[in-house]
């Protein structure tokens, strides 16, 4: 396609999108007029306009022979969530890489960014397909629930549609305009489109999150489920923001891990040294971004849990006390896997430089530290199942392991894991460099002191508050602990960066000089992340137990029971395999555009024009 032609094409496209947007705006404008009128009438005769949540019986749930409606909804929702997360994460990721490229004027970043935005387009349509499938299954198998939810979110659905348009428009311009919007001012325009794309996508996700959290912590309705007419109140329910934060972070880390797996696969498949170097470098960057988002995730997770407790102590205890206590053991295994494989990849990467030998001896201590922290996190917390069990055990804590199972111990473990990962990073960055500033030994002394006092502080806070004060103060230590960890990360990065400013390289960095097994660490990261997301989707729904909308709208279907963990794990595993298969398909499609097969003499020869 010639440059001029593609320019005109894009121009036409922009016009089309602008028209669409204008139309959508007009729709919203008209609709909001109606909505305001409806609100007034609802306010005048309070509660008359909306019905309470229906009280259903098993017969209200249509059945289709030999077809499990719950599993259908479950898988469709989970697939939709995975693809949505991926589709949202890739532009964030691409935006960051593009910005780095603009800053460093290193074209390799720009090319890598482009290579990824390509997959978004296909992934985007698959996301929409699964979204449609989810709505389809919901209307078939849970018609009353779907109707109840749409009544409440009716007003926001217009915005949903509008955002969907805006998202498509921004994505298409961002992708198709990539080569058109190059250089100087145009590059800035392009980056701005990328920012817009991310802003719209994130807002879209927040709207979707409102449905999920409304079902857990309903707001804007009274005890009988009568809607007050205020959609914003329903959206802005207690768990909305905690989930928003957790999902944004998790999505970035998830996107990074998938991109890392892609790079790993390309690395393994390529035979040319130059290509190997390119994909090694890509894998490194993807892993870097994934870890940056991974580090704050546990805190976001605990914030979410704290809010669940604050909203409903019952739901909080169900999450940490009932069968879900065991779920958090599985979660610990997965998160441990994530941290270990990310670190392992970094350690392997030290082989890229000849200077790294100096540091190899430290790696085993880091490994021991991380595994130790992992084991503490892994220790079961409360394993109460029923009141009978509680009585039989005499308490929810194990006699010997108990002290390791409580929250303060886990807080210590998480913080330790993060700090050790920070050290891994620090060592990795230093591996091939020799600092030239005059204050090297002082600087190192300060760093040692920083890490040592920080670690001691975290241990002291955890032990003191965890074991020598009463329950109410047990979690009081978590905030100063987190602050300590953050201080360590920021301060050590700043000190280290200024210390290694203009540092001499020991030897040239050999991108591509990394063992194959390191690439498998990247696969492990991606698979574990995907599986973890599925598992957490199960607990999010499971916490509501036999409620569609917690405490307001009861699930009366024969499937209202909570499935066992093993069963859930199997559904999640099937979902993961499905998702990864489709992902391979998407990546395969994206490279298809560059493939050419000679058609031989298939086409008749023609006179030139």
């Amino acid at each position, binding site marked *: 396609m010639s440059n001029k032609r593609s320019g005109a094409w894009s121009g036409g496209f922009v016009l089309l999108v602008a028209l669409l947007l204008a139309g959508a705006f007009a729709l919203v404008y008209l609709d909001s007029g109606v909505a305001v009128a409806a609100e007034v009438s609802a306010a005048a005769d309070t509660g008359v306009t909306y019905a309470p949540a229906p009280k259903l019986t098993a017969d209200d749930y249509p059945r289709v022979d030999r077809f499990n409606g719950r599993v259908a909804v479950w898988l469709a929702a989970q697939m939709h969530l995975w693809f949505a997360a991926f589709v949202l994460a890739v532009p964030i990721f691409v935006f960051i890489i593009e910005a780095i490229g603009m800053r460093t004027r290193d074209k390799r970043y720009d090319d890598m960014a482009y290579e990824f935005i390509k997959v978004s387009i296909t992934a985007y349509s698959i996301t929409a397909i699964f979204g449609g499938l989810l709505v389809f299954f919901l209307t078939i198998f849970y018609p009353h629930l779907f109707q109840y939810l749409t009544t409440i979110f009716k007003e926001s659905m217009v915005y949903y549609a509008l955002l969907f348009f805006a998202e498509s428009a921004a994505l298409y311009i961002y992708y198709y305009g990539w080569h058109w919007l190059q250089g100087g001012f145009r590059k800035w325009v392009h980056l701005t489109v990328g920012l817009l794309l991310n802003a719209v996508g994130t807002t879209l996700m927040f709207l979707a999150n409102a449905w999920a959290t409304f079902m857990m912590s309903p707001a804007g309705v009274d005890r009988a489920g009568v809607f007050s007419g205020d959609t914003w109140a329903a959206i802005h329910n207690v768990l909305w923001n905690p989930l928003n934060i957790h999902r944004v972070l998790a999505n970035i880390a998830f996107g990074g891990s998938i991109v890392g797996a892609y790079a790993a696969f390309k690395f393994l498949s390529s035979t040319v040294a130059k290509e190997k170097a390119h994909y090694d470098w890509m894998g490194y960057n993807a892993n870097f971004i994934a870890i940056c988002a991974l580090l704050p995730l546990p805190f976001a997770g605990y914030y979410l849990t704290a809010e669940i407790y604050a909203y409903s102590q019952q739901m909080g205890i169900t999450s940490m006390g009932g069968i879900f206590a065991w779920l958090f053991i599985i979660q610990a295994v997965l998160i441990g896997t994530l941290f270990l494989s990310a670190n392992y990849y970094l350690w392997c990467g030290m082989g890229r430089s000849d200077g790294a030998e100096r540091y190899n001896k430290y790696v085993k201590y880091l490994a021991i530290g991380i595994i130790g922290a992992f084991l503490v996190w892994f220790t079961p917390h409360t394993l109460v199942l029923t009141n009978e069990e509680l009585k039989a055990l005499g308490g929810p804590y194990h006699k010997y392991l108990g002290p390791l199972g409580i929250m303060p111990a886990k807080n210590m473990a998480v913080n330790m894991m993060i700090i050790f990962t920070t050290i891994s990073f620090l060592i990795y960055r230093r591996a091939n460099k020799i600092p030239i500033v005059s204050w090297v030994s002082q600087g190192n002394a300060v760093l040692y002191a920083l890490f040592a006092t920080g670690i001691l502080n975290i241990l002291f806070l955890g032990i003191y508050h965890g074991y020598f004060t009463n329950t109410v103060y047990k979690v009081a230590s978590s905030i100063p602990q987190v602050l300590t960890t953050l201080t360590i990360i920021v301060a050590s990065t700043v000190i280290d960066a200024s210390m290694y400013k203009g540092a001499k390289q020991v030897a040239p960095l050999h991108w591509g000089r990394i063992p194959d097994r390191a690439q498998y660490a990247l*696969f492990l990261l991606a698979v574990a992340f995907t599986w973890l997301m599925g598992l957490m989707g199960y607990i999010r729904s499971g916490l509501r137990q036999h409620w569609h909308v917690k405490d307001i709208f009861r699930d009366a279907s024969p499937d209202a029971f909570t499935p066992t963990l093993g069963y859930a794990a199997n559904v999640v595993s099937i979902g993961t395999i499905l998702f990864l298969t489709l992902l391979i398909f998407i990546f395969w499609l994206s490279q298809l555009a560059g493939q050419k097969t000679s058609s031989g003499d298939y086409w008749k020869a023609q006179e030139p024009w």
Partner: protein
Amino acid sequence: MVNLAKVVAFSLLTIGFFAFFANFGIPEIKPAPPPVDEELDLSSMTMEGFVALGDRIFNGKGTCTLCHNPVGGRAPLLDDAAARIRERLRDPRYGGQAQTLEAYLRESMLEPSVFVVAGFGKAGTSDTESPMPVVSGGGIGMSEADISAVIAYLQDRWGLDITVEIPADVAEAQVAETSMAATPVRPLKSPQAAFTQFACTACHIFEEAGGQVGPNLSRIGAQRDREYLRRAILDPNADISDGFVPNLMPGTYAEQMYASELEMIVDYLAGLE
């Protein structure tokens, strides 16, 4: 292709490991099925049967032991609380309506936030809001009869005389339950809801609609200040507005309203200009 096969095999192995661990690495637990409401035949029930029912509810459907247990420290123990509860009723902080132990227990279950045991309030509310759920609410869904049964069980366990009576029939208890579910969440969140709840609109016109027994309040904020309005609601006979007679407006709002509701109403009225 070999690489793809290797990678796929590796991924399947990983997934298999996670699935294996979730299936066999941890004990197989069947989560409790959703609770089913017991078919009660109260007419032929003895007091022992009723106490036993309370026991079942206390340890089961009521989820009381989730919090009221000796290990978590999340809620006061109910093992031998009789003496303590009598003290609660004399506590200067106690602002509820209960005069008897039975009434206190009922109130604790239906309006937990009326009195919050020191140190057990929701974080950040300085013991004004209880983390205990309203037991008649959707989450637990205890009926009037269930609540009485739990009270009977507790009184029996504490060696006291049982003061509750077995409800005459289930239908009555059911009615009580549904009307309970339909009552709005208190404190009320909007002035309109409060006007409906306290029947102000029966006597007053707000926003062009309402009765004419009392003065039209559509522009009351232009004439009266907040101080006056508050007094007019809490003590209607303190000032009588021109052209009206005393003792018409109920003098009971002081007891019925939450402070936040009163302030909300006053704010709203003061703003009507």
